[in-house]
């Protein structure tokens, strides 16, 4: 017996406890447990990210490339010069890279769910939401990287945000909040779609209109009227306007409020839907 009873000496085994009363065990995880389980799964996602650095291309090269490309191609046409375009462009790129980054959240979740380890997550006494929240929390690192690089690229190209340090930090934070919130749309797609490819396809169809039919790269008043209506309704436009206000004037405008409200709404709706489909899939 001694060879196999050395796991945690002195502690009663679960066997002993449960023979006393399996009925006394908690019937659902507490909030504190849910948080610690989500953090453990965020740790896992960070390890995974470190092992597969190629997955970081969309938050490193892409923002640098897009910032430079858009600035030099459209700068003259839209704003007369590159430096005049940057205050308009940088917040747009911030929103766009955050969206691309959170699209990857859904695709990777789908890939992950098809792997054996998710079977174990399902069989463990953990909160059903933890395997969804964990990767989402870890992805804050991705949004943070993308936002930082975009701002640095802008500064290198001559962008001088009038909002000052505080405005830049606030805009950076809002980008992270927006990325994290909008990611729940793609997380939900990840739980309903049949394959990672399907998630990719659908996500593209969601992402392109959201980014390009917004005020991210051009002023909305240059667009035809029917398009302006959509652009105004698009939550990405509110985020872009809010980030612009913060970066370029340091002002906490109404759009900041709208952006945050929109984010909260997206999390409430798609977070609930995600957990529901994920739990039902088991």
């Amino acid at each position, binding site marked *: 017996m001694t060879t196999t009873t050395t796991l945690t000496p002195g502690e009663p085994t679960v066997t002993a406890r449960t*023979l006393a009363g*399996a009925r006394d065990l908690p019937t659902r995880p507490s909030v504190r447990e849910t948080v610690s389980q989500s953090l453990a799964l965020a740790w896992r996602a960070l390890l995974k990210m470190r092992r597969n650095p190629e997955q970081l291309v969309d938050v490193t090269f892409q923002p640098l490339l897009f910032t430079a490309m858009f600035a030099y191609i459209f700068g003259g046409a839209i704003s007369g010069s590159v430096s005049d375009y940057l205050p308009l462009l940088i917040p747009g790129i911030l929103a766009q890279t955050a969206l691309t980054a959170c699209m990857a959240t859904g695709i990777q979740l789908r890939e992950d769910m098809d792997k054996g380890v998710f079977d174990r997550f399902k069989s463990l006494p953990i909160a059903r939401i933890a395997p969804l929240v964990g990767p989402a929390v870890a992805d804050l690192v991705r949004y943070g990287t993308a936002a930082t690089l975009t701002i640095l690229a802008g500064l290198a190209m001559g962008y001088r945000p009038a909002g000052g340090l505080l405005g830049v930090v606030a805009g950076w934070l809002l980008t992270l909040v927006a990325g994290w919130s909008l990611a729940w749309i793609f997380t939900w797609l990840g739980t309903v779609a049949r394959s990672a490819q399907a998630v990719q396809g659908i996500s593209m169809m969601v992402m392109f209109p959201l980014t390009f039919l917004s005020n991210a790269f051009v002023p909305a008043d240059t667009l035809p009227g029917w398009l302006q209506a959509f652009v105004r309704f698009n939550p990405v436009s509110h985020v872009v306007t809010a980030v612009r206000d913060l970066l370029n004037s340091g002002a906490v405008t109404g759009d900041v409020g709208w952006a945050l409200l929109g984010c909260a709404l997206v999390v409430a709706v798609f977070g609930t839907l995600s957990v529901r489909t994920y739990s039902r899939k*088991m």
Partner: protein
Amino acid sequence: MTTNTTSQRGAAVHARGLVKTFGRVRAVDGIDLDVHRGEVFGVLGPNGAGKTTTLQMLATLLPMDGGNAEVLGVDVREHPHVVRQLLGVTGQYASVDENLTARENLRLFGRLLGLSSTQARSTAEDLLGRFGLEDAADRAIAKFSGGMRRRLDLAASLISRPPLIFLDEPTTGLDPRTRGQMWDTIRELVRDGCTVLLTTQYLDEADQLADRVAVIDQGRKVAEGTPDELKSQVGSSSLQLRLVDPAHTADAVEVVRGLVAEQPTLTPEAGGITVPLADANRAADVLIGLRQRDLPISSAAVHKPTLDEVFLALTGHGTEDTRPEPEMEPTR
């Protein structure tokens, strides 16, 4: 240490009329199971019989389409979270994280099960040692052998020291030596007071490990009993001998008749003798008898009844495997 008695109140698993349908396929078609505390219960059946589906319903991984089940007295449908606290589940395919090392995997599952960071670390070390994985603890799991993966998988299921363990085909695809090690590990679990519900495609595995066995076929239970009871329904093992000198055949037959009172079948020109055995242990008596009479043999083998033969006897059809599975490849 808890005792292995089955007299404790309540069964480990008590299931009635389990049903699961996938489209038109009735994967599980009204199965009853009673697993007593402290025993090893084997679910024996060919590929596609419904073993995995049954286990997954009991483990809260698949919703039941019909019937009801209790695990250690807890209703599976009503209180899945409680059932998950009582169970260690090791699936047919490794359910560990390929992106993490063995050590990181065990620490992650420890943290998820509510251990503190230090507890998770020390439990991981203990389990790595116990399962002989210390040397591979920091290597990529992708490079693990099938046996190592299974051991890690089982280790991960033991972190919370669950009183009831489900093992889905724990040795399918393992080489004989690794299989033997896995059997030893399972026996240790039972000595520690665990109840084990395992599935297998091999009668000899059920025979080696299980106190009781349910044979299932096409989603239905076709027999239940101790391994000996099942085998006795099928007939016997046989001893296949080859004599060095075929001229000794008549003498050898005389020895065999004297010892096991059975009529052997012969292939005289090659010196071959096949002896039916009611009890495989009588093989040794026959071999000793031949040596005492100085009748040398060139080979001897005991042939046990196979699952195929059990099936044929129980269902009237064999274990025709319509879609053979690649052994270690996840087919999802």
